[in-house]
């Protein structure tokens, strides 16, 4: 795997909707170098690409489908209680159409 450069990291941060200081990006570049080094070692382990990816510890057997019943409903008041800016029953955000 090739080295990950600062530009790629900045684009990723941009997609994740945050920014970091230049110093942090520099640190992350070197951190990524180590990650790639370690992952390259993993790619050398015999048989690693011969097994299927493991997504969960083990399968849980489900024997039911949940009934489509309305329950544990939150009131609008409760839902919006933690929002910083509320108008009526809605969360208020900066105007979209100027």
């Amino acid at each position: 795997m090739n080295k990950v450069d600062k530009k790629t990291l900045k684009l990723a941060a941009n997609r994740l909707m945050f920014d970091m200081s230049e110093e942090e990006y520099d640190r992350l570049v070197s951190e990524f170098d180590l990650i790639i080094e370690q992952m390259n070692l993993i790619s050398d382990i015999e048989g690693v690409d011969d097994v299927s990816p493991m997504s969960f510890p083990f399968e849980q057997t489900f024997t039911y489908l949940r009934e489509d019943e309305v329950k544990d409903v939150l009131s609008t008041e409760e839902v919006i209680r933690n929002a910083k800016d509320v108008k009526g029953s809605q969360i208020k955000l900066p105007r979209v159409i100027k």
Partner: protein
Amino acid sequence: MRYLSKPLKEIHDAILRNEVTPLDLVKEGLSYVGKDNNNAFEYICNKEAIDAVNKLDSSKKNSLLYGVPIVIKDCFSTKSIPTTASSNMLSDYIPCFDAEVVTRLKNAGAIIIGKTTMDELAMGGSGTSGRKGMTYNPWDKRRKHIIGGSSCGSAAAVSSGLTPIGIGSDTGDSVRKPASYSGLVGFKPTWGRISRYGMFQFASSLDHVAYFTRNVFDSAYLLNVLAGHDNKDFSSGYEDVIDYTKDLSKSIKGKRIAVIKEVLDCCSPKTIECFNKTLDQLRVEGAIVDIVSIDEKILKAIYPTYFIISSSEATSNNANLDGLKFGSRCEGNSFEEVMINTRTKCFSPLIKRRFIIGSLSLSKTHREELFVRAQKCRRLIVDSFNKVFEKYDFIYCPASPTTAPLFKGYNPRFNGDVNVADNYLAFANFGGNPSITIPIGFENNMPFGGNFTAKPHFDSELLNVASILEKHTGLMNLVKENE
């Protein structure tokens, strides 16, 4: 008279003898919590705890948790009680429901007296990255050694005798490692045994509810209270709930225990010395102990595999922290600006770096080489340990290579120099195995632990072997009170 530094049974007996009331216990707890000097608390439930104890249902008096003050890691939703996950992103978030664990504890009569500090959003193993800064190890009055994380506050509260029970979460070793550093029992039951509903997700395929106690019996009793299916958690198991305390004294004669040579090789001489004594104690009980080997390449792959999988899942799980619907919000001229400004200001650099690593690992360009390869490696790791479990009932190793490391020089970044003994515990998260740390010794007055792990669903057998060894070492109910 102090009660909360005692085992659950003793506290319960004191209540039954009318020697102490639940209100007395809560007052004792709040009084000591108020004087906490380990930075163990995000929120102290002064009013909520008194209200709860005044409403306590006396029909629950048979429960050992009746009227017992407990603490909860701040990543568990608690209705009407602030829950921040030690992140500035959630600095004034108040959930409108209880996590299932909280509901079950309340139903058993427990009283929540505090929400405890943690590494931000449970990412980290040092107990230093939460919004309130470093949490201190009660065993080190010079404040130079970490207590470990991410469940740092709960560990500090239990080991300093403020409460007999601290709830935590364990995604890599976040309860079992701090337990080693603070002289506690740290137990992570089988994946799916305890509902995760209402626990903030860090890495869903690895997250477990786990907890600290000061003896194995209390851990077993707590599992009786917390185990069982929950329709609200898709990963919740269906196995019957048994009485996990009933077989604690059962003979372990003939049980086969494997010690991983490569883990032992990375431990300090003092750790090895104490550990070897415990092997002799297990042999005295009739257990068959063998030293076995696992391919070092596999063991060294545990940490990078964990790092890639957990960072990837965390990126996705925390996408809801957008600064719009709940939690902190910074100003901006558009909703995108609000999101960017809030996430930039409120996430710590460590969290942002992990999100970027996770996001790139999931990206089309790098997915196969990073995330999918890590998932494949996870299977190889689990297969390697399962091969050991084909012949052995338990894997038993030191829970940490040494006592708690110093704050100074502790590197929370991804470190290429992988110490196998420092990182192997995550194998039990990969495979969902029950795993328990108990104290086994001291070096320079700082404790360290040994760790037993069993096959999934063998929680009762695991508690049994830990309880037998605990009786031999005599290292139970350890408390290091504040000075």
